[in-house]
């Protein structure tokens, strides 16, 4: 099993550098607590509901999801994670998983033992605040999803998801010129947006016919950013993209 280096942590550093200054000592401190790099095949559960992981994982390549299963077997995806996201930082303090985390596509992840995170929070108060910031940013995304799922039309929900993923992926250098890859089926999108797969198909058709996006799975291309933002009522303030001391 390969050990993680500073290079592997670049997506996390990019995310943090958008929001604050992070010193090279802090980067080295984080890297020193990173243990194994693991390649996880698509559709593999990484931290199932009810489990007690001894480590937290950072996505460095690919996509991961959080989901809950309903009594009748249906699935609700509650978060999509992109490179630079610490997917189960919650398990560091919540201990027992109250939902499942799975690889959506083939993923490369870096594991941080909880003991290592404990050492970081004890010795590096600014890094502890940045880890705290990451969980607050995640909560901000969850709040926005609540508004979107609760009040927006199907068309707006889909448009909003595309806008959000583009901005998040661009931050970590995984989206360029309006294009990014989203390895998700219509069933996956339906489980994310709380719609039926047939409705997802219709909404994608509508966005295409409005000339807002092009979608040749897995590549998404935004053809009209202003128009898409307008449909989605997308305001990126919840993504906390400003740089200031934390």
């Amino acid at each position, binding site marked *: 099993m390969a050990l993680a280096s500073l290079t592997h942590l670049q997506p996390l550093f990019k995310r943090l550098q958008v929001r604050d200054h992070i010193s090279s000592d802090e980067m080295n401190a984080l890297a020193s607590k990173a243990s194994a790099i693991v390649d996880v095949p698509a559709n593999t559960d990484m931290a199932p509901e009810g489990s007690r992981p001894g480590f937290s994982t950072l996505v460095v390549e690919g996509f991961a999801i959080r989901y809950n299963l309903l009594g009748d077997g249906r699935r609700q995806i509650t978060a999509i994670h992109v490179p630079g996201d610490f997917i189960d930082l919650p398990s560091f303090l919540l201990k027992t998983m109250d939902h499942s985390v799975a690889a959506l596509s083939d993923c490369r992840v870096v594991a941080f033992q909880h003991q290592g995170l404990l050492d970081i929070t004890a010795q590096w108060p600014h890094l502890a605040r940045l880890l705290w910031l990451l969980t607050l940013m995640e909560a901000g995304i969850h709040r926005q999803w609540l508004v979107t799922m609760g009040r927006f039309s199907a068309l707006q929900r889909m448009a909003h998801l595309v806008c959000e993923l583009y901005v998040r992926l661009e931050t970590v250098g995984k989206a360029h010129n309006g294009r990014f890859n989203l390895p998700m089926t219509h*069933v996956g999108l339906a489980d994310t947006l709380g719609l*039926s797969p047939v*409705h997802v*198909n219709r909404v994608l058709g509508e966005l295409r016919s409005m000339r807002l996006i092009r979608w040749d799975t897995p590549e998404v291309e935004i053809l009209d950013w202003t128009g898409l933002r307008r449909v989605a009522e997308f305001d990126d303030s919840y993504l906390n993209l400003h740089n200031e001391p934390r």
Partner: protein
Amino acid sequence: MPRYYFDVFSDNTLTRDEIGLDLRDMNAAVAEARLALADMSREAIASAKLDELRILIRDGDDGPVLLTVTISTEWPAKSDGT
């Protein structure tokens, strides 16, 4: 599992399904179409610009099966008391 395609007609436009869904049988496909109609009707009724939604289920052997939801608004007849 056979693959079923769900073409949606609404607002005078057809969204042709090129991807389809793998489902157990036509009964499961009809259930999926009803779920989609339930989903779509909510917005259609609220927006008041749509009166009919149709889903045509296509597959190789069975079908096509057509499901239609119609919303009608009936106004009282005008009296001739002039």
